[in-house]
């Protein structure tokens, strides 16, 4: 490929200069590699975001595109913050997020701890546990509807079998106090494996020698758990909480197909309200304002949380 003279010349050239004379320069290549991704993100993620911000200051309705667009300033934002329905939706969302995080973290961490005991066949059973995560949340919401049916559903039958309450009275989807739990149960069923995996990674990252040193110091298993296992796994647990929190704040698919936001608007989480405002009532400007508020809320909370997480990691 290179003749003798060129070869010896190449060997004599210092490495940084050598890199530059062959092929595209580093800088050119860097931009060539990164630009397509940035352009795509700008076009499909950022540009629409700015468009939505612009829309949020107007009274635009997408189903009446020829009406004159009026700039209404902050009116949409004021109305949202005073809208009782919106606050109700945020409450439903908060209830959902908090309880799913609590249940998934507790059960997920316990599962991870048990799997880390490394009993025989644990890899096989871990794979079985992972399957619910692989499903489409929409399809899951739909078939859990079937499972929750008062008479013919397997869930109602199982509950009545265990507790003796007649199956027709196990109204998970139409009872106002039970409906929020119906979505929490399904989400926990789907995503506990995810939390379990992250906690498992955390548990496996704790080196054996720390436990050995603790044994030498005659620390009891309880003490080892509270002083070694939990603190060292905490960054991972917090990371799992962050991911699940963000995802469940945005949750739409599963809840929409399981309850449709009902009964009434008991389980109407934020995304469902957004969809109703934007694609059923067609109040495009108004719903854009709500979307921006949601985004800022998630972004702000995530930022604060990540700072706390980094502090925990440095301990």
């Amino acid at each position: 490929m290179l003749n003798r003279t060129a070869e010896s010349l190449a060997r004599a050239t210092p490495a940084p200069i050598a890199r530059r004379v062959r092929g595209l320069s580093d800088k050119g290549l860097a931009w060539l590699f990164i630009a397509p991704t940035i352009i795509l993100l700008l076009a499909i993620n950022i540009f629409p975001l700015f468009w939505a911000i612009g829309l949020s200051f107007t009274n635009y309705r997408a189903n009446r595109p020829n009406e004159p667009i009026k700039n209404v300033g902050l009116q949409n934002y004021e109305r949202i913050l005073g809208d009782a329905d919106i606050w109700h939706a945020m409450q439903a969302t908060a209830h959902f997020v908090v309880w799913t995080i609590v249940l998934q973290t507790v059960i997920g961490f316990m599962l991870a701890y048990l799997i880390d005991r490394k009993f025989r066949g644990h890899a096989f059973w871990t794979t079985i546990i992972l399957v619910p995560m692989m499903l489409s949340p929409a399809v899951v919401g739909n078939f859990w509807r079937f499972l929750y049916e008062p008479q013919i559903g397997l869930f109602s039958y199982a509950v009545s079998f265990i507790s003796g309450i007649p199956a027709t009275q196990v109204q998970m989807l139409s009872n106002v106090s039970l409906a929020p739990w119906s979505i929490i149960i399904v989400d926990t069923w789907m995503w506990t494996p995810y939390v379990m995996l992250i906690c498992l990674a955390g548990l496996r990252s704790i080196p054996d020698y720390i436990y050995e040193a603790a044994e030498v110091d005659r620390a009891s298993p309880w003490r080892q758990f509270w002083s070694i296992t939990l603190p060292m796994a905490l960054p991972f647990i917090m990371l799992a909480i962050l991911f699940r929190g963000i995802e469940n704040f945005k949750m739409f698919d599963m809840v929409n197909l399981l309850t449709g936001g009902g009964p009434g608007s008991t389980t109407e989480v934020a995304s469902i309200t957004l969809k109703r405002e934007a694609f059923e009532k067609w109040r495009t400007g108004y719903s854009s304002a709500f979307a921006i508020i949601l985004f800022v809320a998630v972004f702000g909370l995530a930022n604060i949380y990540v700072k706390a997480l980094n502090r925990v990691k440095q301990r």
Partner: protein
Amino acid sequence: MSLASAHSVVEPRPWTKRIAAVLVIAYALISIVPLLWIFATSFKTPPDSIAYPPKIVFQPSVEGYCNLFTTRTRQEPGYIESLPPATTFCDEVTRKRNMVIAGPSNFVPRFINSLVIAFGSTFCAVFLGTLAAYGFSRFKVPLIDDLLFFILSTRMMPPIAVAIPIYLMYRELGLNDTALGMILLYTSVNVSLAVWLLKGFIDEIPREYEEAAMIDGYTRLQAFWKVVLPQATTGIAATAIFCLIFAWNEYAFAALLTSGTAQTAPPFIPQIIGEGGQDWPAVAAGTTIFLVPILVFTILLRKQLLRGITFGAVRK
């Protein structure tokens, strides 16, 4: 056999392992029951599927699958007698219910749409993501931390929120209800995760290999292709699975931005109506068939999937 002598300080005792096994296996079995129930329902006849109490033992039938793939019309028994004998098995099954097959349903086109859009967007996201991740990892990019955080924050918007302006934008560009529009959208959503994951994987590959290659006469591009990529295959596979799972299972964008030509399977399956409500065996059949590709992928590439999920946790 003395337990004390065989006992290592960090290896759990046998009875601990047994209790752990019992609890984990119990959880695994309980959590798999809903899936087994759906699988079973897909082989029930419609009356069996809504029987009370729920039937665990039943006469299997392929009526669910037949209903999934066909559209049918109800006819008078006299008319059915007058038709030529049933040609296929599904014909027979349908005629027993006093119905005649009118034509194929939309399931296969929707499934194919899912295949095209999911695999297409996964390929694009991983391709662009690998290049961008390599760029962020190896070159001095200005404002790199901010750029990376901006890329990650694009995932914090609820999909519905993104869908509002995208709907308007696509309406202007004529991309509504097109496969290309959906592929672009899914690629853009996936590429942020892809860049983040792949950068972590590529960071792990020592620079010395490429630098040695370049001193030996390779260009940067050749070094990337011949040296870095082969070592990054595990990371690329892990990222690809994530992108595929997201695109395959996605519902919100598909439901809002497509209605016919480019509609994928997730919005389609919950809408399968039978007589008097949802045709549960057909829905279960659709769900089962839809699950198969992802299940196969997951089991085949289980190790990469595990690396990918835990990677985000370990490498941050």
